[in-house]
């Protein structure tokens, strides 16, 4: 009996201590990180998350001076799963900022939920045309690109190379349609066939047979993640690599795809807003520490995750960690911050104005297959939808 009373007393003392300790600490910033961390798109989500975490480590685990807690959730590339994860992060976990989504169809499914709750969504990847034009939103900033951009760059390159005919392919989802729209905006040759395949399709034998029969001068294919790995492997196995040049956006030709496909990709040209060798101190530190920490070469997605954290830090500093000062937070980021691509500025719709580069997959002297920066395709390039955005 005595012992029970003692236990109760001790418990009471401990319990009374806990809230007191919590109150004495500084406010913690909660970041909801919803991303594709399993399945065919997992390489993208893991890259963004690793990049984001690396930036946090470089910033001393603080954003704008506030200690940070990252709450991750796997959306399994499924809009339904993402909706319930976002709902949980907003209502139960009271997240202060959201980020992480890879696929545009997933983002478009949760957009109304996020914007309706008044939380900022800092996109490290998905940049659908919808949110660049009429549906642009105060709470949405994409630190990477608008979906069309990398494809516009490759369309421009195909035009410069004067390929008379092109066979173009993409998965059938919002970013796939944005991709081919972007390519066609700058490519003025003849598009002999425009093919949309099921999102997540992995066997491309039927499409590759069509390409062989159509005999185009060039093929342009937007396939991120496992789709890209399979398409490119099968394109090479069918013997087409030597017959028809394959043009790719950086999404289908970066470290994650190269790791899986290997030397069959050497020689392929692709477009990107970022490159391993971009010459600035932030990028050098990012690339070196990323390789050391995760023991692999970062893909463009990792740089985007890193930049998302830098953008948040920049915005939060401007408002002293007070996210209720929404316009100031947004304007601080839009007017520019220093990223892995150097200083990057934004349009009023929250999408960047930046350079786009041409890269080529090469085998380096030590046998490593990597992307090499070849040249600049666009300088200070924005997106095609900003004129329809009525913000500001």
């Amino acid at each position, binding site marked *: 009996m005595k012992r029970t009373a003692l236990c109760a007393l001790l418990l009471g003392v401990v319990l009374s201590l806990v809230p007191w300790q919590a109150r004495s600490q500084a406010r913690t910033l909660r970041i909801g990180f919803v991303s594709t*961390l*399993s399945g065919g798109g997992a390489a993208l989500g893991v890259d963004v998350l690793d990049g984001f975490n690396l930036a946090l480590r470089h910033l001393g685990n603080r954003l704008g001076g506030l200690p940070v807690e990252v709450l991750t959730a796997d959306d399994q590339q499924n809009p339904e799963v993402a909706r319930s994860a976002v709902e949980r992060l907003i209502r139960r976990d009271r997240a202060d900022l959201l980020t992480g989504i890879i696929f545009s169809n997933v983002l478009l499914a949760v957009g109304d939920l996020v914007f309706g709750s008044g939380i900022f969504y800092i996109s490290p990847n998905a940049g659908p045309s919808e949110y660049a034009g009429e549906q642009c939103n105060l709470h949405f900033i994409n630190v990477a690109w608008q979906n069309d951009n990398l494809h516009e760059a490759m369309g421009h390159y195909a035009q410069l190379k004067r390929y008379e005919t092109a066979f173009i392919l993409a998965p059938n989802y919002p970013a796939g349609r944005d991709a081919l729209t972007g390519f066609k905006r700058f490519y003025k040759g003849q598009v002999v066939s425009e093919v949309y395949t*099921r999102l997540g399709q992995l066997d491309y*034998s039927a499409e590759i047979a069509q390409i062989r029969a159509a*005999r185009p001068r060039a093929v342009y294919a937007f396939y991120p993640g496992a789709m890209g790995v*399979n398409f490119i492997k099968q394109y090479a*196995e*069918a013997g087409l690599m030597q017959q028809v040049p394959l043009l790719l956006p950086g999404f289908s030709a970066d470290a994650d795809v190269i790791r899986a496909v290997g030397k069959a990709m050497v020689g392929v040209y692709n477009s990107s807003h970022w490159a391993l060798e971009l010459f600035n101190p932030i990028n050098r530190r990012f690339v070196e520490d990323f390789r050391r920490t995760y023991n692999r070469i970062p893909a463009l997605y990792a740089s985007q995750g890193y930049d998302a954290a830098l953008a948040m830090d920049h915005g939060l500093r401007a408002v002293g960690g007070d996210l209720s000062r929404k316009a100031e937070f947004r304007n601080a980021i839009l007017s520019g911050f220093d990223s892995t691509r150097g200083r990057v500025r934004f349009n009023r719709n929250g999408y960047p104005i930046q350079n786009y580069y041409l890269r080529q997959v090469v085998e380096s002297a030590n046998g490593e297959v990597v992307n090499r920066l070849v040249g600049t395709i666009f300088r200070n390039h924005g997106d095609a939808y900003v004129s329809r955005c009525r913000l500001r």
Partner: protein
Amino acid sequence: MAGGLLLEQLLNGLQFGLMLFLLSAGLTLVLGVMDVVNLAHGSLYMLGAYVAATVAGATGSFWAGVAAGVVATAAVGLGVEATVLRRVYARDHLTQVLATFALILVFNEGARMVWGPQALLLSVPPELSRPVAILPNLTYSAYRLVVLGVGVGLAALLFLVIHRTRLGMWVRAGASNRAMARALGVPIRRVFALVFALSAALSAVAGALLGPILAVQVGMGEEILILAFVVIVIGGIGSVKGSLVGALLVGVVDTAGRAFLPSLFAQLMSPEAASNLGPALASVLIYLLMAVVLFVRPQGLFPVRA
């Protein structure tokens, strides 16, 4: 060149169809002979692919990986039969669905724990990774030709076993009338275990061979299981011949739909409408096929039970 395109698409369709056959033959036998709805069939397919990828990665030999995948999956199949399925043979289908669905969750989470959430890499053996000329002017992936050959060989072997051996006779007897087969002294328990191990081994072959063409990842089984069910419904439950015909039909129709529907639509309507409708219709084509078959022959193409 149009002839070449047709031939290439036909090969693609047959190759896909034969792999579907390896998967659905086991499924239809388990359902026809043992009267068990085995939703976990796709998990065995996944297990075969994972083991193959792991062993191939460790030994450097693709074919050692395939062999290991088949043996390991057959062994796991035997274990699952003895521990889980044997307890639900006498129960109704709903109980079996619940039990085997639970197995899916166990296998998926297990694979995530052992191999991690990211897809494994299973590469085509280097000697098969180049194209071969099958006709002047037409090259085709050597690996896919081998897959085609293995599929044909296994289908022939399966038919020999079913139609020319005592085990096959028992299996056919069990499929057409289970009670009578038992009354005539067929060792049902042993047949069930063997059939289940065989179906697990066949699905592992499909998983290992499709691994380099598709991707070795969690959830790969469920995606293809739906197609396997479409195949056995079209072919007639319990009929191996039916599942062969059904699988080839589904493989060819699916490939043809993806290959030719969009361009057909492009000639009939505006490019905008065609690019919307073509891919959408191509992806539901096999379900349309199933609906038509069910309308004309509700028991499937080759019904087993009179």
